[in-house]
């Protein structure tokens, strides 16, 4: 059996959890990094074919199969319950601040947003999008919030380095040019 075939089957087995590059290598007989990378690339291309309903993605450093976006409306006809979650503007702003500034304390987030964020942070934590593992070594030892791997997956990111650069507003350009009204 070809190595590519094994890799394909393994990623499929792992389902929504996906597999890291290291996990894939740990299952193979004599893995050579370059060859594994090549196989993954070949698989990605193979599934990129517009005739394929599935695609191979790499989010949060994990390879997994997901359906193409165009399948969504058809899937909804069968599974009405599979409605996507939506995030409020306030939730997105808070996530953006954590993602760009992490690790960050609640007080720092509130300074930027100008509003109390306690409830919001709890909700995002419950949603698994942020976590608070450490504490700042200062008076009161406030919790330090960071985004989770699930955040990366939910926002199609492999690492935080892939976040688009923060837009700079240092003068000339029209501040509200790209503003969207809701």
């Amino acid at each position, binding site marked *: 059996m070809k190595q590519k075939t094994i890799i394909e089957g393994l990623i*499929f*087995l*792992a*389902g*929504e*959890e996906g597999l890291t590059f290291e996990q894939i290598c740990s299952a193979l007989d004599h893995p050579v990094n370059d060859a594994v990378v090549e196989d993954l690339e070949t698989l990605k291309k193979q599934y990129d074919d517009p005739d394929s309903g599935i*695609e191979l*993605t790499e*989010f949060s450093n994990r390879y*997994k*199969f*997901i*359906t*193409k*976006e165009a*399948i*969504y409306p058809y*899937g909804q*006809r*069968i*599974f*009405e*319950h*599979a409605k*996507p*979650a*939506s*995030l409020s*503007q*306030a939730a*997105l*702003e808070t*996530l*953006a*601040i954590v993602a*760009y500034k992490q690790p960050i304390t609640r007080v720092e987030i509130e*300074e*930027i*947003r*100008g*509003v*109390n964020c306690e409830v919001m942070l709890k909700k995002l934590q*419950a949603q*698994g999008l942020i*976590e608070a593992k450490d504490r700042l070594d200062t008076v009161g030892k406030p919790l330090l919030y960071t985004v989770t791997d699930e955040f990366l*997956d*939910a*926002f*199609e*990111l492999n690492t935080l380095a892939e976040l*688009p650069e*923060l*837009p700079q*507003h240092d*003068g000339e350009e029209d*501040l*509200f040019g*790209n*503003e*969207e009204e809701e």
Partner: protein
Amino acid sequence: MEFNVSIEQFDGPLDLMLHLIKENKLDLMDLNLDVLAEQYIDYIHQMQEMHLEIASEYLTELAGLIEYKSRKLLPREKPELEDEYEEDQREKLVRRLLEYQQFKDASQTLRTQFDRRQKQYTRPQASMVESWMQIKSDGTIEPQSVYELLKAMDRVLKRHAILQPYETKVTIKELSVEERLEQVKARMKNETQAILFETLCEDCTSLHMIIVTFLAVLDLVHQNDLICYMDENEAIWIRKGAAL
């Protein structure tokens, strides 16, 4: 001045200020704090008159702006100091507004990515995997995150919804008699012997589908595609008719 936008539509005082700046075509880089303060104070007062609940954050900023305005109205004894105060207040606010605007913009990009990703389905890990995993056998439990529990429940509920589409009423687009008719015809075409109605219903997953199957059979009998009869045990038998 009339304000048409309700306070509930803003994500906080900074969001409201950015809105007022835009409405009044103020230049954020060279902010006229007098106008902004006036607008903001008017807006909050109007919302209060409408008896809308104003979160404390809005009032905190209001207090700051009122202080700014009142200082400007007072006779100036030490003009230099006052100028400095004014400059500081303005710079501080502009810096906050700019930073907030940055994250507001960034959240738009994030929204696009989030919405797209939400429209892609995954599937659970193969059940086989669970049997391969080793489970700690000494019986002790380390402290667990309650969020792990929430995630587990979330997984269960999602799977429950996906795996049992029929049981969760109106989940499935209901099969029409016409569609079922075609299916029954296709099924019976190669059937030389009579079969039980129950056999025809083997793929039915709801009462509705059984009824639709029955109606389709009645139609097909009417068109002479099927012949239908009942035996002594009141079982319904179906056989290919002359027209099929």
